[in-house]
């Protein structure tokens, strides 16, 4: 079965972004980029919410034509072109990605649709959603691996990743690695009975 792998950068107080969606507190460096991009080899599809999709499309489609793009950015843009882009949104009517045909729109029955995709052949699936979508996925038990990068900062104010998860569930810690920047990269999988 294909796994849904969630990758998220958090502050130690569990916030995924600042009060105005700031991400500048993330200790992003080559080491963290390399750790995140290890998912390129493992996955061939991504799951996004509407806003993540719109942000991704407006940035990554411009990367190949931008002479300032770094090799790592070009690699990620190529990965996104090839990956199936699964977008969860009630309000969108279509999902486009340049001329690419490999997009899927899920408007409702999220659990059924995702579970159907997990049965299909393919590599694992990279989930990168807003905290709101992540909470929906956690409540529905759709995430099979949590990759959580804890940054050495308490932000105080912002968008919490876990807040509306009211289900208590056990996890298994698969790996913990501290980067030079002090980011602790954790890998957990849910323990299902």
């Amino acid at each position, binding site marked *: 079965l294909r796994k849904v792998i969630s990758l998220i950068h958090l502050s130690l107080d*569990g916030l995924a972004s600042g009060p105005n969606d700031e991400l500048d507190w993330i200790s992003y460096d080559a080491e963290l980029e390399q750790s995140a991009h290890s998912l390129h080899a493992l996955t061939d599809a991504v799951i996004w919410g509407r806003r993540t999709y719109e942000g991704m499309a407006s940035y990554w489609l411009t990367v190949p034509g931008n002479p300032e793009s770094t090799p790592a950015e070009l690699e990620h843009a190529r990965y996104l072109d090839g990956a199936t882009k699964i977008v969860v949104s009630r309000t969108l009517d279509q999902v486009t990605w340049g001329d690419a045909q490999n997009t899927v729109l899920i408007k409702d029955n999220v659990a059924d649709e995702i579970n159907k995709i997990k049965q299909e052949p393919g590599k694992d699936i990279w989930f990168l959603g807003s905290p709101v979508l992540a909470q929906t996925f956690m409540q529905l038990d759709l995430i099979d691996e949590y990759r959580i990068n804890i940054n050495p900062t308490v932000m105080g104010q912002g968008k919490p990743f876990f807040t509306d998860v009211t289900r208590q*569930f056990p996890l298994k810690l698969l790996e913990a690695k501290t980067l030079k920047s002090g980011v602790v990269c954790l890998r957990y999988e849910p323990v299902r009975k």
Partner: protein
Amino acid sequence: VRKIVVYELLSLDGVAENPDSFFADWDEAMDANLAAVIATQDAVILGRRSYTEWAQFWPSSQIQPFATFINGVTKYVATSTPLDRDWANATALDGGLVKFVRDLKQQRGGDIGVHASISVAQALLAAGVVDELRLVIAPRIAGRGRRLLDGVPSIQLESIRSEISPTGYLLVDYRVIHQNLENNG
């Protein structure tokens, strides 16, 4: 200088309240970690609620090394009402918590621990008097309960250690990077 060290048991979603409900295991690495934390402490600050619970539990407990430590150590309790339980070496702290801890830090001695006592930890973190955060993070989403870092202002940290215990708990220690508030130009 003696350090203020906050030691807390958390779930992955940051809940510190009632850790018994999400700590399913306790292994030798967690024991050794706790032993190392308390080895340098000779004073502990407790909140009123933790004091009331612990004063009933620890005096008759044989859970070592924490029982011997917490029963013997000097305990200052942040409370506005007199202590009503008979627990050795516990006194209500005089005056405001933050000023008391700042003064205590200037005196000679070992490190000062904050254990459990969520409100005390939050007040001391907010006041910028905490030097180290030593966390044990359970592999579990608790889903509900008071979170340690809710309502705490922005704080810069330096990660000084992370280790996985044999049962999959994360032992992670941070040093608080103190901003120089006097240096306003």
